[in-house]
């Protein structure tokens, strides 16, 4: 009842601050390591601030990762766009144009969200190859679009479920058909849905690694693969991998910090909470 400094509030804030510090530790370490000169990096001093700040790691890491970053942007943006648009249409049908068996179809869609992707890796690989899409970004985009369908359809379906049916019926009485209702009523109302879904897809695709490494040739490697290359071999100059990690995390972190609200909505929507 009281809001004074009771032991309970001290415990509350104390534990929150300790936890928060623990959660921030890795970033701190990453940041200071990336700002050190390779010579200043040593394990026993890993927590100390850089004696001399070295911004060059970032330029160097960026130079190395630049092609990957470009690839990732192309990949992420186009796959996100395509899968959200398709997801929106699917969600529209799943929530507003149910047909006999549509719930089963939807459940079958959802299943696609939960499979370990290893189980489709070999056929996916062969199929892309047969389609002449192996190695480049288009193949990777296709994979992300297809396997993004379940989650985008789910988010949109749940989003559209909040739009009252009577709105559709009203538009129907007003003389609008399937596509007109979508274009004039549903689509303008789904901007928040698009934001949520595309943020979610953006982070997922940006962060994906398995397909990146299995389905692309060197010139088409996304950022995660680039970073793994950068960090994988040498354990000597840790400033580079750390700077690379920061570069790789930056777009999603920015999205998260600026648009966190929507990101969390996507996260919750993705949890099929019924």
């Amino acid at each position, binding site marked *: 009842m009281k809001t004074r400094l009771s032991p309970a509030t001290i415990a509350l804030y104390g534990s929150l601050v300790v936890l928060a510090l623990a959660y921030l530790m890795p970033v701190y370490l990453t940041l200071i390591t990336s700002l050190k000169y390779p010579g200043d990096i040593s394990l026993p001093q890993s927590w100390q601030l850089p004696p001399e700040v070295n911004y060059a790691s970032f330029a160097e890491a960026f130079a190395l990762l630049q092609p990957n970053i470009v690839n990732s942007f192309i990949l992420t943006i186009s796959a996100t766009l395509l899968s959200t648009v398709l997801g929106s249409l699917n969600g529209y049908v799943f929530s507003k144009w149910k047909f006999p068996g549509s719930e089963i179809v939807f459940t079958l869609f959802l299943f696609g969200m939960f499979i370990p992707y290893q189980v489709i890796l070999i056929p996916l690989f062969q199929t892309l190859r047969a389609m002449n899409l192996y190695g480049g970004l288009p193949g990777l985009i296709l994979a992300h679009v297809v396997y993004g369908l379940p989650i985008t359809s789910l988010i949109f379906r749940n989003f559209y479920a909040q739009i009252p049916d009577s709105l559709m019926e009203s538009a129907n009485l007003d003389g609008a058909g399937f596509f007109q209702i979508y274009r004039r009523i549903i689509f303008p109302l789904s901007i928040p849905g698009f934001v949520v879904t595309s943020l979610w897809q953006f982070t997922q695709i940006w962060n994906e690694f398995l397909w990146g490494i299995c389905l692309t*040739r060197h010139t088409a490697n996304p950022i995660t693969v680039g970073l793994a*290359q950068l960090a994988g071999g040498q354990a*000597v100059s840790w400033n580079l991998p750390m700077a690379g990690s920061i570069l790789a995390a930056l777009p999603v972190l920015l999205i998260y910090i600026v648009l966190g609200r929507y990101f969390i909505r996507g996260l919750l929507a993705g949890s099929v909470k019924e």
Partner: protein
Amino acid sequence: QSTGHLSGQLEIFSWWAGDEGPALQALIDLYKEANPNVEVVNATVTGGSGVNAKAVLKTRMLGGEPPDSFQVHAGQELIGTWVKADRMEDLTFLFKEEGWMDAFPEGLVKLIGTDTGIWSVPVNIHRSNVLWYVPANLDKWGIKPPMSWDDFFAVAPKIKEAGVVPLALAQNWTANHLWESVALASLGPDNWDALWTGALAFDSPEGVKAWELFGKVLEFTNEDASSLSWQQATDMVVDGRAAFNVMGDWAAGYMSTTKKLAPGEGFGWAPSPGTGGEFMFLADSFGLPKGAPNRDNVLAWLALLGSKEGSDAFNPLKGSISARTDSDLSKYNDYAKSASADFGKDRIVGSLAHGVTANEGFMNDFASVMEMFLKSGNAEAAGKAAQQIAVKNGIGK
């Protein structure tokens, strides 16, 4: 044959990154000089000894997107894998055109070829069975490089007591690497060769003994091995945290190029214990996969690799010796000179860990056997398992 008219791309696939990168870069620079219109894509996949690169390469090849030219260990790794699968082009014509049939040692050409053709261009010779140390440190501790494993076992406990790791080891593939040196010491070169022809079984008493010796050696290695890269293991030696390290002679390149240590003074070497007079070799080579998108560019690249100029630009940086018999030794450092001399006079055997003696299938399964052994330390079982995979992969009988 300068071919400045070439254009397009050339994708070179290798696992040479970081410290090994400059050597490759020297080659690429040479190539670019000659072919300014070709855009060279340096596709490296990091991970020592190609642990990651091999998987990525496989996806590329299977995906019908072969890189223009890729790094591969000469020997069974190439032949037992890609040649058998009929994915490589025969390079005999190139060898003939360039006059390499004479430039390379005959034995080497045999190892990279089969009855039906020659499959890759070797760029270097590495020695696998080398023991590394820092002379100053050894003096400090009052020990000498061991000539045999028994010598080693004599001094190791002392060093260990002093808080120094007697033998630095890194992640799993370096265990294979160590094993082959130990096994060679235990078996002797003839039995070693016999293993790979199937004449000697892995689970024979000799084979099992090799595992037992290996087990004993492991007792003197560092516990955190599996989390270290080979460079970090070498660092341990350089920093004085460890006394010795068995590693291929790319470690010489690392120590001299990256760590700026002078061969002979900053770091010293010896044949790994019990293998004096034996040269366990491996060679990196590049091939031409069928369906390479820029075949002409590749041919120019391969020609450069095999040339004296290319070879002498590359090897001094890489810390290896040239595969050619006519290389200009003045460009090489002291280590390389000594290795080159040894190559001329020692008994040559092939490396297992680096793909000379066995195909990839065996090597992979062997990694599982190694894991099993690292965990259980059961030499008998390891021998049996190794024999089983040898049979499975068409080596043993």
